[in-house]
C-alpha cells in the first residue's frame, strides 16, 4: 500500500519498500538531492531534515515512520529563521566542501525556531550531531549567532 508523504508542503505517494530510509526516498524517488548521505547510521547529520519541526536523521528513519507528517528538506526551507540562517551562512562564507551544510543548516534552523537567542551551550547541544570534516565549526557558531541577531532586529 502506498505511503502518503507530505514533503515541503506537497503531497507525494511512495509505494516501495516501507522500510526504505526516508533519505533515499527523498533523494532518489522524489529527486530532492540537497539532503545528503554521509554515514547511514545517524552519526554525521548530513541527512538531517525536519519532521513536524523537529530534526530527524533521515538515513535511519524508515519512510513509513513519516507517513502523513510534515517533512521539510533544505529545498523547502521558508521560515523566517531559516532565511536568516541561510543568509548568515552566505554572509560569513561558512561553507568549504559544503557537503554537510544542508544538514548543518537544518539543525541550526530547528534550533533558532525553538530558541531565537541560543547560548554557546545550546549551540553545542543542537549541533553536536552534525559532523563537518572541513571543520567549519567556528563559522557555523558565528553564523548562528548572526542569524539570531538578525531575527531579533
Amino acid at each position, binding site marked *: 500500500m502506498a505511503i502518503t508523504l507530505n514533503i515541503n508542503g506537497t503531497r507525494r505517494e511512495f509505494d*516501495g519498500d516501507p522500510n526504505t530510509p526516508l533519505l533515499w526516498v527523498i533523494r*532518489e524517488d522524489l529527486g530532492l538531492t*540537497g539532503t545528503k548521505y554521509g554515514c547511514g547510521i545517524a552519526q554525521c547529520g548530513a541527512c538531517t531534515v525536519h519532521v513536524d519541526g523537529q530534526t530527524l536523521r533521515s538515513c535511519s528513519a524508515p519512510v513509513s515512520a513519516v507517513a502523513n507528517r510534515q517533512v521539510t528538506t533544505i529545498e523547502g526551507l521558508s521560515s523566517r529563521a531559516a532565511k536568516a540562517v541561510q543568509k548568515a551562512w552566505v554572509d560569513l562564507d561558512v*561553507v*568549504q*566542501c559544503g557537503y554537510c551544510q544542508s544538514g548543518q543548516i537544518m539543525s541550526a534552523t530547528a534550533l533558532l525556531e525553538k530558541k531565537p537567542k541560543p547560548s554557546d551551550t545550546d549551540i*553545542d547541544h543542537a549541533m553536536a550531531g552534525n559532523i563537518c*570534516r572541513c*571543520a567549519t565549526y567556528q563559522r557555523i557558531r558565528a553564523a548562528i549567532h548572526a542569524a539570531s541577531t538578525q531575527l531579533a532586529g
Partner: protein
Amino acid sequence: MHPLMNRFHDEERRRLMEFHGVQETIAPLVSRRVFLQSAGATGLAIGFGWLAPMDANAALPGVEGAAASPLAPNAFVRVGTDNLVTVICKHHEMGQGNTTGLASLVADELDADWSLVRTEYAPSDANLYKNLAFGMQGTGGSSAIANSFLQYRSAGATARAMLVAAAAEAWHVPAGEIRTSKSMLTHSSGRRATYGEMAVAASRQMPPDNPPMKSAAQFTFIGKDRSTPRVDSPSKCNGTATYTIDVKLPGLLAAVIAWPPSFGAKLVSFDATDAKNVKGVTDVVEVPEGVAVVATGTWAALQGRRALKVQWDESASHELDSEALLARYRAQAAQPGTPFTKPASTSATPAPVKTIEAVYEFPFLAHASMEPMNCVAWLHDGMLETWSGHQFPTFDHMLAAKAAGLPMDKVKLHTLVSGGSFGRRANVWSDFTVAAVNVAKAIGGRAPVRLQFSREDDTGAGQYRPMYVHAVKVGLDAQGRVATWQHTVVGQSILAGGPMAEMMIKDGIDPTSVEGVLNSIYDLPMLAGSLHSPALAVRPLWWRSVGNTHTAYVMETMIDELAAAAGRDPVTFRLSLLGKKPRAAAVLKLAADKAGWGKTRRSGVAQGIAVHESFDTFVAQVAEVSMRNGKVKVERVVCAVDCGVPVNPDVIRAQMEGCIGFALGALYYSEIEIKAGRAAQRNFDTYRALRIHEMPKVEVHIVPSTEKPSGVGEPGVPPLAPAVANAVAKLGGQRVRRLPFTRAGLVET
C-alpha cells in the same frame, strides 16, 4: 600530490602512459566543435595554451580564430554579450576555495564587476589545463593558486586589453585614455560601454603579446579582504550544488560493490540468488574489484549486497595486524636503513655530553571526507562519460579509457565539486573511477550507473596515511646546544610501486616519507637519517599535508624537549635555530606575540607552540590547552601564516581554521586498526571526527607579504598536533609519543 612532482612533465606523462599501458596520445577530450557549441553565449573569448609561471610576458600561442570570430577556443575566460564573465577553473574544488581564488585573479586584471563573474570547471585536457607545477592536470600539494597566479591574471589582462582596444577603435580615442572598472569602459568624453556591449568588437582585436598587468598597489580584489566572497556559498547553502551523488541521468542505476573484506582477500565464489530477489536489483556481476550489485536505487543495491553470499579466500591477509606491525616497525627502527642526510650547517659541531632519545608511533589514518567515494560512468555510442570529483583528471582519464578499452578521445570526464578529499581523490590508481567503469562495462553499457561507496566501504578501503615509527636520538653539548641528530623513519612509501616512483624516489628515499625532517627549517648540525620503507597489502596514500602529518609532530615536540633540557624558553630556543629561515622566525614571533606567550595562565591551562614549513608556506600555532581530571581540551589556537601574497585573506583564514579542526580531530581520535587483515573502524561511531563542542577558538594572523603566493589547503595541519602536545607536556609532564590521544587516555573515549 606533492610539490616534488614538479619534475613530472610531458616526458614523464608519456612514461606514465606506458606504465599504465595506455597507448593513445593525450588528445583534447572535447572536440573544438563540441566545446564551442557548449560554450553558449557569444562574445569575447580568450584562448591560449599555457604560460610558464616565470614567463608571463611571453607570446600567448593558440589564439587562432579569436580575431575572426567571437566563437574562438578559449581556455580560461569568456566575456559574453550578456555582460557575464566566465572563468574556466582548471582546479578541483573540494572546499579549499580555489574556484573563488582563480576567478578573482582573472576578475582583478579584467576589472570585472564581481557580481557578474561566473565559474565553470574545465574539461580534462592536460595540454590546456595542466597544473604548471606538475605538468599534468591535477590539484594537490596546495598548489592551485600558486601555479595559476600569473596564468589566470594574464588571461584577465588579455581580455581587458582587447576590450580597451575595441573601445578605442570605436570611439576614435587613444587606448591609454580609456578607463576600466566594474565591467565598464569609460572615456573622459562621456563615452561608456559595458563589457558585454563591447565583447563582439573586442573579439576581433588581436590579443596583445604583453597585456599590461597590475602592480600590487593597483589590485582591486587580490589581497582585499572580503572583496570576493566565495562563489560557491549560495548553492551550498540551498541544496542546489551538484555533487557526484546528486547526478541525475535518464535511467541512472545505482551500484555498490561487495569489496574484499580484508586487505589481499581473493574472491572464490558468490551466490546471487537472494540478492537478485531483492526488489529493484537489476544485476549482480563480477568485476575486478569484487561483486557489484546494481539496482534502480542505492537502498535496493545495499539490500541486495546484504543478501549476496560471497566466499572469500582470506588466507593471505589473516596475519596482517596493526599492533604486530607496530612491534615490527619498532624493531626495524633500531636497525640502520637507507641513509638520508641533511647537510651540516656551517657552525662547528660541538661534542655531545647528553643524549635524549624518543620513539614516536603514528597510526593508519583514513581521509573520511563527508561524501564517500563515488563515480558515475556511462558507456554509450562508442564512448564513455564519467562524472566525479576528478581531482587528477589526467590520471582518471587515462585509466578510465584503459578500463573501458577506448581511446582517450572517446572518454569525456565531467568534473564536479566534491564533498571533501583531503588527498583521497588525488589518486594515481583512480580506484573509484576505474571501478565505476568496470561496473558500467559489466552491465554492457545498458544504462548510466553510479558506483557508490557506503561509509563503511570508504573507511575500510585502505588508501590510508601509512603507519609510521620514528626513532630519534639527539646529542646536546655542555651549553645545551644540539650537537648530533640521528633520525630513523619506518613506514610505507606512498610512491613506491606507483607511476611516479621512478622519477621521485631517489637513492631509495621516498621524499614524502622524510619531508619535514630532511628539509627541516632548523639550522642543525648534520642530521643522520635512515629510512625503512616496508611494503604492505594496504595501499598507502597522501593525507592532507602528507609526510608533514608525522614529521612535524616529531620535530616540533623534540625541539620542545630539547629546549626544556637546555632550560630555554621554547620560542627563544627555536629562534636561535632559525637564523636562516626568517619567514619561519617571523610567524613564530607573530603567533607568540598575538597569543600572549609567556604570560601567566590560570591554573590547569598552558600554551604550547609549534612552527613548520610545508608547501612553501610557513605556519606557527600556539595552542592554549586546559586539563581537567586528566582530560585535555584545546581552548584556543592562535595561528600565524605566511603564504606570500595573500590572495584571499578570508579563504586563508578559513583554511587555517579548517586545518586546525581537521588536525585536532585526528590528534584526539583518529586511528585505523587492522585486525586479521580487516580495518576495525568503519564509520564515524568508531572513526571519530571532531565535533562542534570540541572546536577551539581560532585566531588567524596573516603576514603581509610580496613573496609569490603559496598554498593554504594543507600547511595549517602540521603544527597543530605538536603545539597541543607541547602544552600537554607542560600541564602534566607527559610527553605523548603515540597517537592518537585516546591511546594516552587524554580524551574521553
